[in-house]
């Protein structure tokens, strides 16, 4: 419905203006649009948000964006799959919002001159910009670490956050949280989420591996149903089934119940378990102990511990637990810690410790080039701290 106009304007008035402006009417398309302010201008409760074409289409289709954050957080906006920071951008221009506007390609050149009436509903000098960021999954790990699931938990009725509660507190999209839960090997028990206590996980894993051994199964072909059923006497079925899934993937070309054990993952867990018990070991001693600890038939390799350990440049070398998740969340602070721990790193060595800070616009190499200094030693390319010795 048209706004009642507070002024009169006729075709003749418009033509007069064209003349005064020294324009030639016949050079113009035959629609002139009279632009005015509506009588009911928008208030500050309307904001403009700049989005990608993708998100615009998703919103049109009914998808939602969710603002997430608790007090003290910078608000983020999440689509179903991505997380964005919001920044307010000011423009030195005025943005007039009109609900109707005719563009040149919509005007037939042969019509006779007409007037169109266009109302400006609001004027904006600012808008919000979205910048894609990495999901803030550290909070997820923190929350879950408050209530780890131990051997006692089933009996004591241990309580943990629901998925809904996680969505409320973690600044990440739904998809990203699901991926995070999988990466952190989280357990779902009665619609609550937990990280598994390491001792309990070792116990359950040992039961599983021993069962494989008792049945003389080869690691690339083990059976889920029998394992879960037999061990459900010792560990609740739901739990042993999930732990089984942490370490076993469906066997390629196998039957429905046939799975392959991820031996690298097993080694990684054992390595982490040993290192958590002590502040550091001599590298040679650790490697020997580690190999002995894992089941027969599995071979350990230090590459399995990427992002979990630091081998110090001492003589003789020492290995200690050094987790990516314990490092500062910002690039500059993190690199300071890394270069203090070790003067120089190859890209391969440092990658697992910085990859969570990369974005689609800044990959590992770009990150290192920007924030660190490359050096060449004996034909190998390293990175070291940008400033200082």
């Amino acid at each position: 419905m048209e706004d009642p106009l507070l002024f009169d304007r006729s075709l003749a008035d418009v033509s007069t203006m064209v003349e005064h402006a020294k324009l030639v009417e016949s050079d113009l398309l035959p629609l002139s649009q009279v632009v005015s302010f509506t009588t009911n201008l928008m208030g500050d409760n309307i904001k403009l948000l700049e989005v990608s074409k993708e998100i615009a289409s998703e919103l049109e289709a009914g998808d939602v964006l969710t603002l997430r954050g608790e007090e003290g957080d910078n608000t983020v906006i999440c689509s179903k799959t991505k997380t964005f920071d919001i920044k307010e951008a000011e423009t030195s221009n005025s943005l007039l919002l009109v609900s109707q506007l005719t563009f040149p390609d919509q005007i037939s050149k042969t019509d006779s001159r007409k007037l169109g009436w266009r109302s400006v509903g609001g004027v904006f000098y600012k808008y919000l910009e979205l910048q894609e960021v990495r999901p803030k999954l550290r909070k997820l790990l923190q929350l879950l670490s408050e209530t780890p699931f131990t051997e006692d938990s089933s009996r004591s009725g241990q309580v943990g956050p629901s998925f809904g509660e996680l969505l409320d507190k973690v600044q990440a999209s739904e998809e990203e949280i699901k991926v995070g839960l999988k990466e952190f090997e989280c357990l779902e028990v009665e619609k609550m989420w937990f990280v598994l206590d390491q001792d309990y996980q070792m116990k359950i894993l040992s039961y599983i591996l021993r069962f494989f051994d008792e049945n003389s199964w080869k690691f690339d072909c083990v059976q889920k149903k029998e394992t879960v059923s037999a061990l459900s006497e010792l560990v609740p079925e739901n739990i042993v089934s999930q732990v089984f899934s942490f370490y076993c993937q469906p066997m390629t070309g196998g039957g429905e119940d046939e799975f392959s054990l991820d031996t690298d993952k097993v080694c990684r867990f054992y390595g982490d378990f040993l290192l958590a018990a002590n502040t550091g070991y001599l590298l040679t001693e650790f490697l020997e102990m580690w190999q002995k600890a894992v089941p027969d038939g599995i071979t350990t390799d230090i590459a399995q511990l990427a992002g979990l350990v630091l081998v110090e440049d001492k003589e003789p070398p020492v290995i200690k637990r050094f987790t990516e998740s314990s490092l500062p969340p910002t690039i500059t602070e993190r690199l300071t810690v890394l270069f203090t721990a070790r003067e120089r790193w190859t890209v391969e060595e440092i990658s697992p410790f910085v990859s969570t800070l990369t974005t689609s616009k800044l990959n590992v190499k770009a990150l290192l080039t920007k924030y660190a200094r490359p050096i060449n030693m004996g034909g190998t390319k390293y990175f070291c701290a940008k400033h200082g010795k």
Partner: protein
Amino acid sequence: MQFIVKSGASTPEEKFIIEMQGDLESRNKEHLEGKFIGDLHYTKDGTPIIIIGHHILYGKVVVLDKPLVALEKIQVSKDGSDSLISGNSDGEEMMDLDAEMETKTEYRVKSIIRKKLVFKTRPKPIIVVPKVGESN
């Protein structure tokens, strides 16, 4: 804490923007309401021209690389029945704590803007020389 941004019951309208350099006359909204701004024309080759007051500005049609959405902050009842309780018109910060209320804050997508007219060239003044015999 979460606030939802969504389309609501109806599909968002398509709207447009006319972008001009600098401030319009006054930022006082009451002063502007209902007022005439200017005449918008297009040359035959599609160049937009706007005559505002004693100025003429040339511009161009721009398809936005990144569309804009206009969001309206509203309070809805917590039972999700989607009935509007009240519009919020005093420009509060986005993160409201209204946990005690029976309502929650939502941001409705009112419109989507994909095209604009941008007038960036400096306005040319129009000098009107009254002709002999004209009363104005």
